[in-house]
């Protein structure tokens, strides 16, 4: 789960990371009011969306004085921002963060992430912080410093010092930098984060070390024990269809093509996408109904699928291991009738009671195309949209 910049900053500041003064606003008037609580004249009005790279997309506006703030806030609020990270559909701005503008003389990058190969948390740091860290990393991978944290003991001060010296940070900042790094690690560990990132971590002209931007993501599977974090969820930032699918107990991922995929099991879902690609098509989404699906789940799934306007054909690929093809078939027939499905439906059923399932479909009178193999199904689906 992602959270907003302002939320990440609030959390990290509790772990000893210094952040600029700032306040949250839901309206231009509130933005102006928030700016009054900030000591400096120059502020940034920052769009709060679950994406970085906002500067290039015009999501961060430097302002001075009430009028400029009001104008910037007015323009940003409700705007759809398309950044390098949002995808072409962009994200709509519902919240603004008004923040003290700091002068930075040097910018660093600091990130904490789980390395799944080592099964350990890794700290990454770079003296080339700021925008487009990915590009700079690709050009100069050696510029990224890494330290592995031993889970049995946690991050140690010597590791933080080692990073500081490797980065060549001015030694007067040693203590601040160590505090920041250890604080980020504790936040990562104590809050079940999957990502803690400060970029840029800036040195100001008066020798302060300040997190100018911060990003945190959390382990969805651990939210049950992190109520405070779970409450930071901003549903307005999520794809509405995914959200609805989640509420219905389905796993839905939206993609760019036009073939809707209704499958059971994540592995089969990936394989279905691969087959569609092999056949020359593009999936609009995949909707995983899970391995033990009951008939009513199919109903919910078809309902979700139809809400996606880009779907021009529905490909159903079911391998019934612990569930039953006849149930799936019954559910499909009922849902197709109920929702008056007008797009073509290609169905491949295999496994438990596959024969019965196919018979149910054939005798139901609804217009479905039955495919014999996964590959046939994919090819038939692609044909429909060509």
């Amino acid at each position, binding site marked *: 789960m992602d959270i907003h910049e302002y939320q990440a900053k609030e959390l990290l500041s509790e772990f000893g990371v210094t952040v600029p003064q700032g306040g949250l606003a839901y309206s231009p008037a509130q933005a102006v009011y928030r700016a009054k609580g900030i000591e400096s004249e120059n502020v940034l009005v920052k769009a709060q969306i679950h994406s970085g790279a906002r500067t290039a997309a015009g999501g961060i506006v430097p302002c001075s004085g009430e009028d400029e703030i009001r104008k910037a806030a007015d323009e940003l609020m409700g705007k759809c921002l398309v950044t390098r990270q949002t*995808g072409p559909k962009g994200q709509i701005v519902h919240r603004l963060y008004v923040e003290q503008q700091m002068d930075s003389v040097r910018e660093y*990058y600091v990130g904490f992430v789980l390395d799944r190969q080592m099964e350990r948390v890794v700290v990454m740091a770079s003296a080339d912080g700021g925008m487009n860290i990915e590009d700079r990393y690709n050009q100069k991978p050696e510029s990224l410093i890494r330290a592995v944290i031993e889970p049995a003991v946690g991050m140690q001060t010597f590791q933080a010092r080692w990073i500081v010296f490797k980065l060549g940070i001015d030694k007067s900042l040693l203590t601040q930098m160590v505090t920041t790094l250890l604080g980020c690690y504790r936040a990562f560990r104590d809050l*079940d984060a999957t*990502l803690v990132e400060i970029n840029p971590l800036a040195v100001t002209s008066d020798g302060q070390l300040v997190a100018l931007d911060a990003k945190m993501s959390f*382990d969805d*599977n651990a939210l049950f024990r992190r109520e405070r974090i779970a409450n930071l969820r901003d549903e307005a930032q999520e794809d509405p269809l995914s959200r609805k699918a989640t509420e219905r107990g389905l796993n839905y991922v939206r993609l760019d093509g036009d073939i809707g995929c209704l499958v059971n099991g994540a*592995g089969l879902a*990936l*394989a279905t996408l691969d087959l569609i690609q092999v056949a020359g098509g593009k999936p609009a989404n995949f909707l995983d109904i899970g391995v033990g699906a009951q008939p009513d789940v199919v109903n919910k799934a078809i309902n979700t699928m139809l809400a996606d306007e880009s779907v021009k054909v529905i490909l159903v690929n079911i391998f019934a291991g612990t569930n039953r093809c006849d149930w799936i078939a019954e559910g499909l027939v009922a849902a197709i009738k109920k929702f008056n499905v007008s797009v073509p439906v290609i169905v491949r059923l295999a496994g438990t009671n596959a024969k019965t399932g196919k018979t149910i479909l054939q005798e139901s009178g609804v217009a479905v195309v039955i495919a014999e193999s996964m590959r046939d199904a994919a090819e038939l689906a692609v044909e429909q949209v060509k």
Partner: protein
Amino acid sequence: MSILVDKQNKVIVQGMLGEKGTFHTKRMIEFGTNVVAGVIPEKGGSEYLNLPIFDTVCDAVEQTGADTSIIFASSPFAGDSMMEAADAGIRLCICITGRIPQQDMMRVKRYIKGFDESERMQLIGPGSAGIISPGKGLVGVMPSYFYREGDVGIIARAGTLGFEAAYQLHKADIGISTSVGIGSETITGTTFVELLERFNTDDETKAVIMLGEIGGLQEVEAARYFRDHMKKPVISYIAGVAAPKGKRMGHAGAIITAYGESAAEKIEALKECNMPIVSDPSIFAESIKEFL
């Protein structure tokens, strides 16, 4: 032979009371697996599905001599269940439960590693579909009716892909020695390499189907093992070639995790090791046939 599971395993079930636990325990018993007990804290001394119930894994092991455990406990409790199994002397633990918090899994792995190698529990999963050795034992959730005895080994990260492969073999009249689901979670117990090693020395296995996917690097390690040590044919498939990089992939924090983990990069690495790759998941059976 077969690997990991045969008729000797004495199996206990942790987290038996739920719908899944109940359903699959019944199926394992029907299959003929020697399920000796269930562990349900607070219910020790009672019976369920005609099995004796114990409060702790420790009690179950002491009273029944159990050496194998299968876990259906829900995700918040599964980490604790795995450690309890390791502590009680269980030798093989299959965790069906998935979606376990990463930090719990880091703890579980660390806890298991704290034991001497000779006493260390082998963990399959979490998020595993289990293990089936047709004709011998089922400690998992495989729909066993289409798994027939034979000489092909299957290792799959995703459960349904493993089922799919087994079903294709069934249709093609090819039997299976053992099929193992190792799970797709970020941190898991047993890896492809460890299972290839076992199949390598298993007299009853002639060839192996390895079903990988995007994320992680263990498929590449398996390919290196294949190149350097494997004496039997292996065919592999990497699911997710067509999957777009996740939203987070564009992100700096993903630098370290993304490198070499995409399906395309993996396939490249596998090819370098001369491991045969199937790019069409509907032809597992015909692809393995030529090696038998």
